[in-house]
């Protein structure tokens, strides 16, 4: 195809968690605009493997914007220049011939680099484990239609629930704060009637774990919301703050 592009990539290469990393330049030629960003990297990697070199490591799985695995900081922005999508949904038609593209891993104390562009985001799992659940054993549930939930509330809870746990919010935030993620998780359950019994315990436990993981403090810059591929709103953060303060300051300890 005539509209193929030639690009220069500057990719963060780091052998393992302990090694020192650096930006390394690669040439990506004949890139079709119909390729996804990750497919472009696949092609570069095929070339590296053929030379016997170590391919560029990055996390990815579903390649359709839902698993939250992919996580590249592209030209200064998580998931690249477009809004509301993940890196795997980014297509090369968003770039121009002869562009230089800088690709870095998520940078945060809570997301240490494992290798190249892959980071360890298990901190998110630990936050969820601390309280992101409703304590209901299998088998004991009442009929699903016993509790009607107004559509607006169900929809609002759903909006919070769409978070894919990618960590772009942390990556975008100048403070590497995980507030958008945590608040989305807290909000989903705080909004629903099923989540009420543990509401106060949940928010306290999850915030405590978030702090323990070394994420920064929110200064309400809104970068998270702007970069979140699922367009989660920072209203969730306000809601979580409210829940947290009322739990801490006005509820008796549980």
């Amino acid at each position: 195809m005539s509209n193929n592009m030639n690009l220069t990539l500057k990719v963060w290469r780091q052998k393992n968690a302990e090694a020192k990393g650096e930006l390394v330049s690669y040439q990506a030629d004949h890139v079709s605009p119909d390729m996804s960003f990750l497919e472009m990297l696949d092609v570069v990697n095929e070339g590296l493997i053929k030379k016997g070199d170590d391919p560029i490591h990055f996390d990815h799985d579903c390649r359709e914007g839902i698993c939250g695995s992919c996580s590249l900081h592209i030209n200064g922005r998580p998931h690249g220049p477009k809004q509301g999508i993940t890196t795997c949904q980014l297509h090369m038609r968003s770039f121009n011939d002869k562009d230089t593209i800088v690709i870095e891993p998520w940078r945060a104390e809570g997301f240490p680099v494992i290798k190249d562009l892959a980071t360890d985001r298990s901190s998110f799992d630990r936050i969820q484990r601390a309280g992101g659940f409703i304590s209901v054993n299998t088998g004991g549930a009442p009929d699903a239609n016993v509790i009607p939930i107004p559509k607006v509330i169900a929809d609002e809870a759903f909006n919070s629930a769409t978070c894919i746990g990618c960590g772009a919010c942390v990556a975008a935030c100048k403070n590497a704060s995980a507030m958008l993620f945590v608040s989305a998780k807290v909000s989903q359950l705080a909004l629903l009637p099923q989540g009420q019994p543990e509401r106060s315990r949940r928010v306290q436990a999850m915030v405590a774990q978030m702090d323990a993981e070394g994420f920064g403090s929110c200064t309400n810059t809104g970068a998270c919301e702007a970069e979140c591929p699922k367009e989660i709103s920072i209203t969730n953060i306000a809601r979580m703050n409210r829940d947290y303060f009322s739990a801490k300051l006005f509820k008796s300890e549980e």
Partner: protein
Amino acid sequence: MKLDAKIPQGPLAEKWSKHKFNLKLVNPANKRKYTVIVVGTGLAGASAAASLAELGYNVKAFCFQDSPRRAHSIAAQGGINGAKNYQNDGDSIYRLFYDTIKGGDYRAREANVYRLAEVSVNIIDQCVAQGVPFAREYGGLLDNRSFGGSQVSRTFYARGQTGQQLLLGAYSALNRQINLGKVTMYTRHEMMDVVTVDGEAKGIVTRDLINGAIETHAAHAVLLCTGGYGNVFYLSTNAMGCNVTAAWKAHKRGAYFANPCFTQIHPTCIPVTGDHQSKLTLMSESLRNDGRVWAPKTKELAEKLRKGEIKVTDLKEDDRDYFLERKYPAFGNLVPRDVASRNAKEIVDEGRGVGTSGIAVYLDFAESIARLGEDAVRAKYGNLFDMYQQITDENPYKQPMRIYPAVHYTMGGLWVDYNLQTTVKGLYALGEANFSDHGANRLGASALMQGLADGYFVIPYTVGDYLATVAPKPVDTSHPAFEETKKVVVERINKLLSLKGNKTVSEYHRELGHIMWEYCGMARTEEGLKKAKGLIQELKSDFWKNAIVTGVNEEFNQNLENAGRVADFLELGELMIDDALDRKESCGGHFRLESQTPEGEALRDDENYAYTAAWEFKGENQPEGLHKEELVFENVKLTQRSYK
């Protein structure tokens, strides 16, 4: 070994209740003395691990992703069936059972399917209690949509991401048990082999994907919940990491593999654009509720479209062939997947395909947009339309989508009995990894149902029946079988790492995919399959000579991971071909050109093929042994499926 499916006696509707009563129980105080390994944390694995831990068992759970939440169940879009009859439209457990058996083209076990339909109602309750935000009506009650292959509305959904919401529910239950110390979670761990002692599963060997450490883990029982093997086709709607490795290793250790050739080709996916393509994206089946499938009436028109001489919007109603509505007036665009896919292929084969490649048909929303308004359509399908536009750079509100079938789901899998136990004692298979409930074709919205049924409501009962026969003694990895199995794993890794040829692993994978798609895809022939078998054998031996695997074991090495998976796919591919060759009838997703009705529909041969083919591994490069489990239908009458 004679296959015993352990189907309980008695009337269909009472089988499961009676069976639950007859299963042996583990004394509550003893439960904590048992350890169960759960490989996989998708819907099946996460629900099983959480439920077993709630009962008191110690669970070790494994997944290869960096988080249990990223298992490929996350990607399911459309919905999950539940025979709740909330819509008062005539649904019932029996109807869901009947639809599933019929949809599966009468190649599934009645008893299993009935149980599935029976527990489907509990699944919905369980998920709602966990906080899964299903779509609701203004009155606050749950909403339903209809799905292919059924005439009632019983599909529960959460916008276009039902899978993610269900998985997050199961993941939260799992998290709660991890937090309580009942589940130990191993992420970024790949299961490399099963350890058997005297024919019973006693543990697994894993590789830590970060540092390459080969570890052994012992348990009283092992559950494989490792998903489907659609990636054997290279291009599929599955995630990049989906693999057959765990199931395949179990197969080589004695677990029979059932109906491997039964793969589902989903009719509505975004067509391939070029060689660089790494995966295909599904457009949810729910789109067929409002979208109309069509192709140009003549080859000439299609030709002009492909060349760009005319635009799709120029085509008049008279020039369009709404082929599904025309051929299947009763079900129209909502015919089951296999039927819809095959018809799209026929159109393309006739030269009436569209798009630059000519390998696509249209899915058109113009009529719905005119009837409901663009906003209503956006509210229903907005995220899917956006996804489509993102990938194709075309606006589906303004022009029809181009779609084409793609590999989506594998009905085949490890053979299991009614208790979900494989032919290896103590080794169970759940979810897409087993073959159990969908016969030759799966109905939409029933895989999520099956995964959760297996994990939440079946295995917690049936695994106890086995554990009650095993002494509640602590387990360890001291038995020599662990060291031996580990050695096998290490040797294979070393062999892979020694490959320093000139062709990348992905190139082999792509070639394998081409062969499978061409000869073992939507239409299969004796001749083609035989040819494919030869091609795969060549490819396999070439792989072990000329592939390139870079790096070392003791590091994060994605190239090595992939090499191991592709090597297993190469072996599986051959078995799929064997299975497809054996089954000379057409049924469900398996369409043998030699066996069709005069109208070109799949022609089953119940006389000779009403069985499940379970294959036994007999040694490297040895033909596998075929065992037949006869399917007995006591409740439904076998008829030629008709959706006209």
